[in-house]
C-alpha cells in the first residue's frame, strides 16, 4: 500500500494512486492547468482518468487535449470527461453512499480493463453551494476517502474559493488528507493503517473547534478491532485541550475509549494534567 500524501501540498504533481487532494483555487484557468497535470501523471502511471467539471464535454475534452499525453488517452479511452451539471441538476444533493459505490464500480472496471487504478479530477463547486448540499457532500468526502485509503482510486477535488468562501472550503478540506495552502489547519481522513478508524493530522486547536467536532461527527468513528477507537495520529502536530475534550465526548457517546496512535507527547501531557477521561496517546514512550 502506498504512503498517502498528507498536509499542505503546493502542486498536484507526483501524487500516486490513493491520494485524495482538496485543491482550492481562485482562477479557473489555474485549476484547469493543475487538473491536466494531475491527470496526465495518472495516465503515465497506467491509470484510467476522468475529468469531471461543469461544461460541454467537447469543451472539457479540449482542456485535456492541451496535454499530448491526455490527448492520446482520450483517443484510446483511457481518459474520459464528464459534465457534472449533466449528472446533477442545480441544487441537487449527492447521495454519499451511492456516489462512493459508483466510483468503486468505475475503479473495478478500470482494473478489469487492465489499468492500474482510477484517478479523477473533479470541479465540484456546483455540488456544494447550499447548506444541505455541503452536509451531504462532506459525508461523501469522508466515505470516499475511507474507500480511497484501501483501493487503487485517487481524486483531486477542486473548489472555487471565490464562490464558496473560506469557511465552506475549510469544512470540506479538513476531510481530505492533503489540501492546498490555507484551506484547513487539520484533517480527519481515511487510513490504510490496520485497526485504525481514521487518521488525524495537522493542528487541532480552538481556531476551529466547531469544525473539529463536526468532522468527528461526520466521520462516524467506531472501533475497527477490539473495543477502542484507534486513530492514526502520526501526522498530528498538536491538539489542544478543546480538541481532546471533543474526543473524550466522542468516546463517551460511542462507549469506546479513543487512542491517538503515535500522537504528540504534548497531547499526553495535556491529558495527564487535565485528567481527560477515555482518551490516551499510544505508541510512544510517554
Amino acid at each position, binding site marked *: 500500500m502506498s504512503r498517502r500524501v498528507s498536509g499542505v501540498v503546493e502542486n498536484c504533481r507526483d501524487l500516486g494512486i490513493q491520494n485524495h487532494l482538496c485543491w482550492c483555487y481562485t482562477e479557473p484557468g489555474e485549476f484547469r492547468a493543475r487538473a491536466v497535470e494531475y491527470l496526465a501523471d495518472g495516465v503515465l502511471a497506467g491509470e484510467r482518468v476522468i475529468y469531471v467539471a461543469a461544461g460541454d464535454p467537447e469543451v472539457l475534452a479540449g482542456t485535456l487535449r492541451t496535454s499530448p499525453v491526455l490527448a492520446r488517452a482520450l483517443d484510446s479511452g483511457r481518459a474520459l470527461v464528464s459534465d457534472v451539471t449533466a449528472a446533477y441538476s442545480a441544487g441537487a444533493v449527492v447521495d454519499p453512499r451511492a456516489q462512493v459505490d459508483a466510483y468503486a464500480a468505475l475503479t473495478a472496471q478500470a482494473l478489469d480493463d487492465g489499468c492500474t487504478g482510477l484517478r479523477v479530477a473533479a470541479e465540484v463547486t456546483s455540488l456544494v453551494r447550499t447548506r444541505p448540499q455541503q452536509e451531504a457532500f462532506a459525508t461523501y468526502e469522508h466515505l470516499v476517502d475511507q474507500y480511497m485509503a484501501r483501493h487503487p482510486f485517487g481524486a483531486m477535488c477542486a473548489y472555487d474559493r471565490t464562490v464558496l468562501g473560506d469557511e465552506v472550503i475549510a469544512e470540506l478540506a479538513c476531510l481530505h488528507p492533503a489540501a492546498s495552502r490555507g484551506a484547513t489547519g487539520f484533517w480527519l481522513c481515511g487510513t490504510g493503517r490496520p485497526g485504525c478508524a481514521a487518521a488525524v493530522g495537522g493542528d487541532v486547536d*480552538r481556531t476551529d473547534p466547531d469544525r473539529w467536532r463536526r468532522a468527528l461527527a461526520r466521520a462516524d468513528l467506531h472501533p475497527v478491532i477490539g473495543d477502542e477507537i484507534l486513530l492514526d495520529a502520526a501526522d498530528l502536530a*498538536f491538539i489542544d485541550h478543546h480538541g481532546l475534550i471533543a474526543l473524550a465526548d466522542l468516546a463517551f457517546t460511542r462507549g469506546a475509549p479513543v487512542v491517538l496512535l503515535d500522537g504528540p507527547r504534548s497531547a499526553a501531557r495535556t491529558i495527564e494534567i487535565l485528567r481527560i477521561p477515555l482518551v490516551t496517546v499510544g505508541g510512544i514512550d510517554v
Partner: protein
Amino acid sequence: MSEPGFIHDCGFYASDTEFRTLLLGHLEPALAGGAPIILAYSDHRTAQIRRWLPDTAAVTYFGGRKLYASPARTIAAYRRMFTERAEATRIYIAGDVPHEGNGGTFAGWDRYEAAVNTAWDDFPVHGLCLYDAVTSSARVRDVVERTHPHTRRPSGARLPNPGYTEPAAYRALAPAPDALTTTEPLVTLSDPRPHEARRVVAALVADRLTPGTAEDLLIGVSEAVTNANHHGRLPIVLRLWTGHDRVLVQVSDRGPGPSDPLAGLVRPAGRAGLWLVHQLDLDVDLFNDQEGFTVRLRCYT
C-alpha cells in the same frame, strides 16, 4: 455556628522556640485525635520537626520544599491529598511558602495565599502558614496579614486580621520584571494565530530546551495565544527572549485580562486553559500595565 471548611491562619516567629510553640499549638488537636497532618518544609526544618513529633503514620512530610513547585500546582497537589483523606473530620497542614526571606520569590505566592481561602473551602482543613519575622519583609508581612483571616501568636492567642481582604477583591503583587525584557527579543509576532506561534517558538527553542520542557512551553504558548485571540483585544504581540539559562515568552493583548484576580490558580468548571498553563513546568506570571494584559512564561535550560 459550625467551623468553616478551610481555616487559614498565619503566624510569625522570631526564633526556633517560637516556631516550635506555634507549630505544636496548631497541631495539638490533630495529635490528640489522630487527625491527618501534612507538613511541607525544607529538609533541615523537616528533620527538626520529626524530632518534635511522635512517629505516626498520620503525619506526611514533604521535605526540600518540593510541594511548593508553583502556586497553582501546589493548590492542586494539596487538593489531591485532601481528597485522599476524605474520611478525616479535619486535616491539619503547615508549610513554608516561598518568599525572598527563605530563598524564594513571593510575587505569585501572594495570589496563592489569597486563593486558598476559597480554593480549599470544600475541605475540612486547618492550615497554618508560618513566616520568619526576621527575614520576612514588611511587604510580605502586609500581604500575609491581608490574605489570612487570623494570626496565631506564640502566646497561644488567635487574633483576627483587620486588614483581611476577601480573595475576589485581592489585588496581586506585580511580578518582578525580568531583565531579559530590557533587551531586544529574538522574535516578535504580531497577531499570531496559535499554530503560527507554536511553529515559530518550537523552531527557536528546539536546541535550547529538553523535549519535555519545550512541549510544556508550546502548550503554554498555545493556550496564551488562544486566550488572547478569544478573550483579549487586538493587537496581540508575542515576544520571545533567550538568556543563558532561560527562555522567556510574553503574550500581550490590549484587553483588561481575566476579571477574576485568582484566574489560573483554581480549576474552573468550564474554561480550563489558563489553569492548564499554570500546571505546566513553567514559571507563569500574569500582569496588567498601561498597554494591557500579559502572560509571561519562563522555563530554564
